[in-house]
């Protein structure tokens, strides 16, 4: 039921998520932040059951830090994406089974190049310029394809995200009022709620 969607612009990446936690017919919380900050220039939006989301998120975050301590620097986006993919891929044939969550990993490298990666629970990995996880796929991919153009500015990107949110609020059966949006640029991460 989570919606995670994002797009990559000329010098930034945006990942947005809905804020709701539901339990059967009850909405427990509306302001849950499902986008994990891996470091100052990387964010990982995770969609899935609460427990899997939290535990896999922590696993990725801590391993990411461990590699930083072992090697002396944080991995760049491509390395991080492949590393997270390998965690997913190892799990699918393990005793405990796959990590039941999907993700969108986005960020900006030290040279300013933005990237956005689509990861799923089986260990699929694709570099994308716009995409979504979960039910949001069905509602937003057409809109994102239509609105996207290469080298978007930050303001244009935010406008597109606002249109996506409006679309979900209009057409998606599950009412999702609050959305958390995070933007990564060379300067860092900005977060706000829409």
């Amino acid at each position, binding site marked *: 039921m989570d919606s995670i969607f994002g797009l990559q612009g000329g010098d930034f990446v945006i990942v947005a998520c809905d804020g709701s936690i539901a339990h059967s017919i009850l909405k427990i919380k509306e302001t849950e932040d499902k986008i994990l900050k891996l470091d100052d220039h990387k964010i990982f939006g995770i969609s899935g059951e609460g427990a899997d989301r939290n535990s896999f998120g922590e696993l990725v975050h801590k391993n990411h830090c461990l590699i930083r301590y072992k090697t002396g620097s944080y991995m760049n986006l491509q390395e991080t994406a492949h590393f997270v993919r390998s965690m997913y891929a190892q799990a699918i044939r393990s005793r405990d089974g796959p990590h039941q969550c999907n993700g969108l990993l986005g960020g900006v490298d030290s040279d300013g190049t933005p990237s956005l990666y689509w990861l799923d629970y*089986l260990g*699929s990995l*694709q*570099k994308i310029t716009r995409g979504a996880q979960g039910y949001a796929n069905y509602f937003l991919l057409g809109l994102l394809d239509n609105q996207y153009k290469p080298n978007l500015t930050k303001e244009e990107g935010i406008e597109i995200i606002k249109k996506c949110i409006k679309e979900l609020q209009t057409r998606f059966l599950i009412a999702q009022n609050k959305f958390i949006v995070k933007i990564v640029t060379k300067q860092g991460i900005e977060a706000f709620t829409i």
Partner: protein
Amino acid sequence: MSGIFEYNGGSIVGMKGKNCIAMACDRRFGQQMSTITTNYQKVFKIQDNILLALSGLNSDIHTFYALMEKEINLYNLKENRKMKPTTFANLVASSLYERRFGPFFVTPIVAGLENGKPILATYDSIGCKSDLDDFQVGGTGGNYIYGACEAFFKPDMSPEELEEVIGQSLVSGCDRDSLSGWGGVVYVLTEQKLTVKILKTKQT
């Protein structure tokens, strides 16, 4: 899951020519009926004279490709020489059989040039090697591509002819398969060079 091999979709085809080989693949990556990207690479250059095409589950394509890269790099370091295409073809078969009771959900095609002689091999997901035919197909659109290949193929084609024939076969096949398409990429390998061409297919 209607079929783990059909989950992500995709088609690949390999052909032998006169002292050359060609591989082609489509560009779609999807989740059952939904398309995620249209620039998904399924053919990998393992060595200057070996190409590996993989179709099936995206995750296992990444994993199996990484495994083969590792094997060939270790081989180069240990033996201080390049791997022959026939050796690599055997390596793929044994690597797949190692996972006999928990297989990789991929159907590989290996193509290479050994002393100018074209080598082409295909496998099922548990490593049964088949290297006697002049063209091989794989993936969800495989059966459709077979028909086009039978019609267009003739033995000992030049690289230009081969590129044309394999391109047409791929396009005809993928246009009929809903899980493959969104463009095609053709790789033609000769002794001198590797050419890569991107084709347009029906945009659905």
